[in-house]
């Protein structure tokens, strides 16, 4: 755990130090900071091949093997396992009301919902929501840092990559008293990955079919989605780009045109 915090401190320092982050942004919703684009595109192509050969076929095999209601129950259990981490991040972000909802969902779904198989809380008016440590770091003011594409895991950035590691250690599966063995935990993570890949299948296929540059489209969607979870909605509306004035002219230095904190 100590190594994680040291690594996290390094990420925070790197994000704050990166000089391009200091560039003023007039419309941050449009800003892309991808200084490692060449490297990322290489990883993206590798992942595309891996997905074609292994990940997608495995996800479709998972779909064939389990009926929809069973998969739904599995997804509910996986979500329930994540809920204590959501609660922790709700509280770290100072969102006490949402934290109360997370706590209530965990108690209700773990008991009445039979170990999380059934999402009883949603029909009772306690809907699910997401919170993770990358989002927490963002709400604490840490910039996202450079965009990263991580094979198997997909789009990310420096802040979210660090957050994902912390989330892994903060999971209830890491609790010593639960005695979750490594093979069991790996199995849960594989099922989580297959189910997540399956859920995104039509979106990924749509992007591959319609986008002129699928890498850029996925990057744009990811960064906008993550930014929407960090930035105050009123501020985000104020920072939307103009529909009548084009951004800086073609040929402007990429560092100036493609950077900025969210």
């Amino acid at each position, binding site marked *: 755990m100590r190594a994680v915090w040291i690594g996290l401190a390094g990420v925070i320092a790197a994000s704050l130090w990166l000089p391009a982050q200091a560039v003023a942004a007039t419309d941050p919703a449009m800003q892309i900071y991808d200084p490692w684009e060449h490297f990322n595109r290489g990883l993206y192509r590798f992942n595309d091949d891996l997905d074609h050969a292994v990940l997608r076929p495995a996800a479709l095999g998972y779909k064939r093997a389990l009926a929809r209601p069973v998969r739904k129950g599995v997804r509910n259990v996986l979500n329930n396992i994540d809920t204590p981490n959501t609660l922790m991040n709700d509280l770290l972000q100072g969102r006490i009301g949402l934290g109360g909802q997370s706590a209530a969902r965990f108690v209700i779904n773990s008991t009445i919902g039979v170990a999380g198989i059934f999402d009883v809380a949603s029909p009772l008016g306690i809907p*699910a929501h997401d919170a993770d440590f990358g989002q927490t770091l963002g709400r604490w003011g840490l910039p996202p840092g450079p965009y990263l594409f991580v094979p198997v895991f997909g789009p990310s950035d420096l802040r979210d990559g660090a957050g994902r590691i912390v989330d892994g250690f903060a999971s209830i599966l890491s609790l010593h008293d639960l005695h979750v063995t490594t093979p069991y935990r790996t199995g849960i993570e594989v099922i989580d990955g297959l189910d997540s890949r399956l859920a995104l299948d039509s979106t990924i296929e749509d992007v591959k079919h319609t986008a*002129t540059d699928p890498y*850029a*489209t996925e990057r*744009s969607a990811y960064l*906008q*989605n993550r930014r929407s979870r960090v930035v105050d909605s009123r501020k985000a509306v104020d920072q939307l780009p103009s529909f009548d004035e*084009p951004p800086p*002219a073609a040929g402007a230095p990429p560092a100036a045109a493609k950077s900025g904190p969210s």
Partner: protein
Amino acid sequence: MRPFSQSLFAAVVLIAMGGAVAVIPSPFIVPASAQSGARNAGAEQFVQTEAQRALNILTQHRGDIASEKRLFRAFIDQVADVQRITYFVLGKYNRSISPGQQREFATVFREYASNVYESRLNEYHGESLRVTGSVARTPTDVVVQTEVYGGKLEQPVAVLWRVLAESGGWRVVDVQVDGVWLAITQQQDFVSTIDNAGGNIQVLIDQLKRQVAKDEAG
């Protein structure tokens, strides 16, 4: 992107892209007193009314794909400001595009966008929409907040609509689902494609033409 909103994401693409340049006067007038940050009742009413009209087309002509496509093209011609969207999605390359390429791009972009949404008309499953508020960036530039619910959605999904007013009428220029603005995403896709072609806009135009030909053949 959360999976439950995929069909919704597809559905709102209808509004964010496609259509023609005709400006249809709207009965909803921009209130002179509208201030930045305040709600705008006219913009909210516009979104509620037009979204309901879209849902009516999908409901009343379910299964009749030809009618759905024809009515939807006419609908988008009326509610989307395609001229602005077409200009916006080229981003910084609007400064260097020739008038001939601009015409060529506008034509192929309309076909490309229409093919994208028409291929998804069958993903509507009876969802409804209600307006929950709005934020005026300026009196003529408003973000309307809505919730889409029902159908196959397990929970309501927040959808934002950016509408601009001109000549007495509101027009949609962008739609946001799960924090992702469609026109902004489209711009970043197109600009990246042109960047990677060394700034040659014709490469994007030719790629879109090939995509359209492939869609129409398939």
